């Protein structure tokens, strides 16, 4: 009997664990270690953040689902990995620390045959002084990265709306809280959902809404922008985004690294080296992501974290981390199997794998501050990678170490994204986009690096319906309800 330990129960980890459990059957054991008691459909958090959904609608308890799937569930956070085993045994193991109320703080080791690191990111609020602190739910700004954060964001937004109704003008600032953030899409959705809600509340004219982000142009989204086929014509995502901002009367600051947040004020540095301040009454700024801080030790107990993890804390996989300067970057730099190069029984999936480099053009201010979006690895790519890794682990267990590993390079993978710009059965709007490949391949597709026949988008009410249907569909799938395997990632 082999044991697969999956660290993390988000989109990637949950997908890996549930498919592996199904394919491996009861002959082998799948263990999930996640600090959370609930699964969260993160894309719908923006609707919790504007009060259009309750926290209970975007989360569900993991324990009964894992019990149904025959998965061993540990509500705990992983602390360290010993891929060579310890003093008394060569069997690799992870050390975990329980977060559940009954065992909080207790440590345990779990031996494994295969390990999938799908911890997701650490929300690195500390990178920018004063940025909304996750555990204490907001110092000066709020966040929608978790359902609890989103509930808190809605409370603060409600206060701002009440002030507007009372005749006090409010400044709303939404975007990224650091020069190295990713997930611009979530902030993009949130700002337009706020705008939509303010119109519904009849107080739009009492709000000055502003976007602040580390993108060098609107519509970069951490993917270097994209060219969309819209209504038969190909347009840049820059035009797509600028039109929406102009249409909704939303001002913008781009190429910005938020260096400090004080009460009611952010300080930022721009790509041209200039600095500025922006005042706000309500602000949601996405924090930068980092690895969760897992340590790794060899058999002798020596720290080998640098061998297993990249400096940003994400796990090294089969990527080319020596691609060098921007002009040398290739699609082939991106990982295919997500297998750790040193320890072949370890994989990483979703945000937890270390990308070889960013996707957007690297940029920094004259002061040397890097200001560019980091690569998005959430949503559909996360699910696809999770399932691919599950395939590979099952193949290794069934056929031995020479089994063929499955591949899912982001440079050969398409992705669909539906970005909400307001919720409502008849008044909702969303931008639905597909992009192929996620990472541009300039050798295969000279010019934009993408196949414009498969990279297209539309904005409208139908997009909102799609997003709402997907919300129910993916929660249905994650609960492992009948037919869940038929629903794509």
């Amino acid at each position, binding site marked *: 009997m082999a044991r697969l330990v999956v660290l993390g129960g988000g989109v990637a980890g949950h997908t890996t664990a549930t498919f592996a459990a199904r394919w491996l059957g009861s002959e082998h054991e799948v263990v999930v270690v996640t600090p959370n008691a609930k699964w969260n459909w993160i894309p719908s958090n923006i609707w919790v953040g504007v009060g259009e959904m309750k926290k209970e609608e975007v989360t569900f308890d993991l324990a009964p689902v894992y019990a149904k799937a025959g998965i061993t569930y540990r509500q705990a956070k992983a602390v360290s990995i010993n891929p060579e085993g310890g003093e008394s045994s060569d069997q690799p193991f992870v050390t975990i620390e329980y977060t559940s109320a009954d065992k909080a703080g207790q440590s345990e080791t779990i031996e494994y045959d295969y390990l999938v690191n799908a911890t997701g990111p650490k929300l690195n609020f500390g990178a920018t002084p004063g940025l909304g602190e996750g555990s204490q739910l907001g110092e000066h700004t709020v966040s929608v990265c978790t359902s609890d954060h989103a509930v808190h964001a809605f409370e603060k937004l409600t206060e701002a709306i009440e002030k507007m109704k009372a005749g006090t003008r409010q400044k709303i600032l939404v975007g990224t809280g650091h020069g190295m953030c990713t997930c611009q899409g979530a902030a993009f959705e949130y700002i337009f959902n706020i705008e939509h809600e303010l119109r519904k509340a009849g107080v739009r004219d009492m709000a000055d809404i502003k976007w602040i982000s580390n993108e*060098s*142009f609107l519509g970069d989204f951490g993917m*270097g*922008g994209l*060219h969309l086929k819209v209504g038969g*014509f*190909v*347009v*840049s995502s*820059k*035009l797509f985004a600028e*039109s929406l901002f102009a249409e909704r009367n939303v001002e913008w*600051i*781009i*190429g910005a690294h938020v260096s400090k947040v004080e009460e009611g004020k952010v300080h930022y540095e*721009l*790509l*041209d*080296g*200039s600095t500025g301040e922006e005042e706000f009454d309500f602000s949601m700024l996405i924090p930068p992501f980092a690895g969760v801080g897992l340590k790794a030790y060899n058999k002798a107990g020596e720290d080998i974290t640098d061998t297993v993890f990249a400096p940003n804390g994400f796990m090294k996989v089969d990527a080319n981390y020596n691609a060098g300067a*921007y*002009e040398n*970057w290739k699609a082939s730099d991106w990982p295919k199997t997500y297998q750790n190069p040193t320890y072949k029984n370890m994989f990483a999936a979703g945000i937890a794998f270390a990308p070889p480099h960013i996707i957007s*053009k690297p*940029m*920094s201010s*004259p002061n040397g501050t890097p200001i560019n979006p980091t690569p998005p690895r959430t949503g559909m790519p996360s699910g696809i990678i999770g399932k691919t890794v599950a395939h590979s682990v099952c193949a290794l267990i069934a056929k031995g170490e020479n089994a063929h590993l499955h591949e899912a390079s982001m440079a050969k993978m398409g992705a669909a994204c539906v970005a909400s710009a307001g919720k409502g059965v008849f008044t909702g709007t969303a931008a639905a986009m597909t992009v192929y490949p996620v990472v541009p391949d*300039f050798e295969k597709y*000279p*010019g*934009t*690096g993408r196949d*414009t026949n498969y990279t297209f988008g539309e904005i409208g009410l139908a997009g909102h319906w799609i997003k709402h249907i997907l919300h129910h569909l993916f929660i249905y799938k994650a609960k492992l309800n009948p037919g869940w395997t038929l629903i794509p990632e």
Partner: protein
Amino acid sequence: MVKEIITYPTPLSVKYATDVRVFSDELFALIKDLKDTINENNLDGLAAFQIGSYYNVIVVKDEDGELVEMINPRLIAHSGQLTTKESTAYYPNRTAKITRYENISVIYQDRDAKDCSLKASGSVAIAIQRKIDYTFGATFIHKMSKEVKEAFENRLEYDDEVESADYCPTSFKRDKIVVIMNVIMAFMVLGFIVALFIDDSLLLQNIWKYLLYGSVGVVSLDVVYFFYAQYEGKQQNGCSSCQIGNIIGTALMVLFKLSIVMLLSYFFVY
């Protein structure tokens, strides 16, 4: 080398915004071609697309008339707004009133791949914005409102050489006359339907009388519409939807609908 400037209707390529990654002789030759073409045609600037390259490169004249080479430019800060009448080599002999930022800050790379920034105002800022738009696949048409854009595209389609942006409005006063005629006819239809369920001959005669009054009113308004619409159409130049064909068609359509109502009423009400 002076290159031919791409003009409308050559469609916008799908291969814009390809950031320059390799700073080679190919890039330097492209920049030289851009400069030669600007000087030959006495332009305020060009984007690489305009001479057939899809690299993210623009060359723009600054306040002193010097040509500034910008590779991978990005507009990252702005303030103020300015509406001016713009022309661009892509649409020869056309102008349009476009609103843009008055002051901008742009970052770019020079030919040595060194990061640079530039602040610009007024006409130079406008020229830079227009050229950066090209590198992302846009012309100034994308800065227009939906209505103005449609009107501009109509003018392009009909090859109208009118220089000023004298756009065809999307609604006319004459449309109100059509609305009134339609409302009267809607009441007439209602009267006709009610008449189908009435046996009282006196009441039927009254309904027929009102239908006649209504029809006279509609015909009179239709005549007023016909002449007023022509007068209003003459106030708009280069406006295809103001043409006599549309006016005649609308007037005849009203008469046709009225005839149907009165014909049915004659057989079932009179």
